[in-house]
């Protein structure tokens, strides 16, 4: 049963991920990316980490991708016509990097199977709300606070960039119109 669902959601994730890259229409890519996030959330549920799954859906599918789709809709991006890629040298580089990535994944898989360490129990409490909460506010308090300050800085920075036109109305707005 578990194997069946693993194959189902894994195949969904890979299929959607391929579609993200292969689609020419940016909106279709965005929809495929949402599919990737939702299949990943299903995989997290199967790993007994419901909190991470819920957060995955809320943050990625529910917030970030909504903004991405929003921007695509607002800009009304046209379908990109097929043309020969200008940066030709990137193609072999990409293939080489993908090869390195696959080799790394294979190495990890092999070394995991060879290692003698057995998992302590089949059900862990890593992904539960309580364990994540207590870990965040005790052991990892400093990284947590630094991350929130970083996010606050990003918000303030975005505000400053967006307000620049409003602060200097004359010249900047005429620049913006073109």
């Amino acid at each position, binding site marked *: 049963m578990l194997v069946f669902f693993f194959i189902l959601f894994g195949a969904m994730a890979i299929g959607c991920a391929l579609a993200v890259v292969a689609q020419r229409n940016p909106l279709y890519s965005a929809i495929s990316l949402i599919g990737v996030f939702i299949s990943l959330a299903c995989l997290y549920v199967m790993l007994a980490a419901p909190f991470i799954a819920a957060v995955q859906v809320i943050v990625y599918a*529910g*917030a970030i991708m909504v903004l991405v789709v*929003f921007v695509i809709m607002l800009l009304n991006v046209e379908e990109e016509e097929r043309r020969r890629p200008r940066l030709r040298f990137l193609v072999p580089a990409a293939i080489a990097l993908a090869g390195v990535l696959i080799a790394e994944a294979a190495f990890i898989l092999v070394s995991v199977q060879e290692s003698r360490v057995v998992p302590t129990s089949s059900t862990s409490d890593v992904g539960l709300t309580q364990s994540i909460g207590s870990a965040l506010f005790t052991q990892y308090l400093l990284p947590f606070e630094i991350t929130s300050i970083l996010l606050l800085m990003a918000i303030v920075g975005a505000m400053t960039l967006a307000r620049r036109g409003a602060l200097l109305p004359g010249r900047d707005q005429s620049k913006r119109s073109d």
Partner: protein
Amino acid sequence: MDSQTAIDIALKFAAITVAFVVVLLVVAYTVLAERRVLGFIQGRLGPNRVGPGGMLQPFADLLKFILKEDIVPDKSTRFVYFLAPVIATMAALMTMIVYPFGPEIPIPFTDIVIPLTVARFDVALLYVLGITSVGVYGIMLAGWSSNNKYSLMGGLRASAQMISYELGLGLSLIGIILLAGTLDLARIVELQSGWHGFRWFIFFHPLGFVIYMIAAIAETNRVPFDLPEAETELVAGFHTEYSAMKFALFFLAEYINMFTVSMLATTLFLGGWNVPFAEDIFGRPSFMFGLVSAIGFLLKVIFFLFLYIWLRGTLPRFRFDQLMNFGWKILLPFALLSIFITATLIFLFPNSF
């Protein structure tokens, strides 16, 4: 797969089917109730011809939707155009499985105990928020794929509004999570059963309740926040180009969402299925206690649905800039204030919560 697993899966499927049918029936009659109550508010009768007192009107409407011609705009983006109503309805229906409709009911003369919740898990509240946030895509994609200016504007407005008010909605629930110390909806209801079934969280977190109600009305795109489908400006908003059954699916999703936020308000703020003094009269667990509690839950939800209809008959519509200003400059600070107050009270008097 052994036979026990198969029976469990079959029982879950049956429970989900029963929950969906009940929800769809309640939704169908909410539509009828809305038309009749609006009729009485406006000094007319409303639909009262089909069946006794108009009781069969929902089925007549459904038949009409099925039989109408299904028009697909020529220049629409086909696949997304078909996908959008499906996403909207699915996201609306998927949250139904976590609500505790009532306590466990023991059937008399047998030792069968029926739990009135389809699924109970650790992060039920987050699950509801996550699925609701995915529901935005239905509206956005409908607006985009129709290839119509009004649809696009309606979809953009709807998604901007839903993103903005999701903040207030989520923040108003933090106080409840602080009070309960859990995200499990069934446990949250259990915690409210003190004081003879009257220990409702609304008394501990009243500001949060007001904010939740306002944000919930905006989330479901209802009057006075129904800017996405403002007829005078946008024809019918994101569903301008949708007809027949596809329009019916959007219609259905809107009313299921109304029902969902009403159930969430009942569960989190008004004690869920806790009916005052029911436990003292009937004892627990007993069949009567379960029945009275489930009916109490339904009555509370119906109160919220009536509130929605009442507001629709009473209030005019916001302007779009007013809507955004209200969401970001009033609702959000007050939601933060309510969290601050509740957290401070819990910190100062940890024993009384």
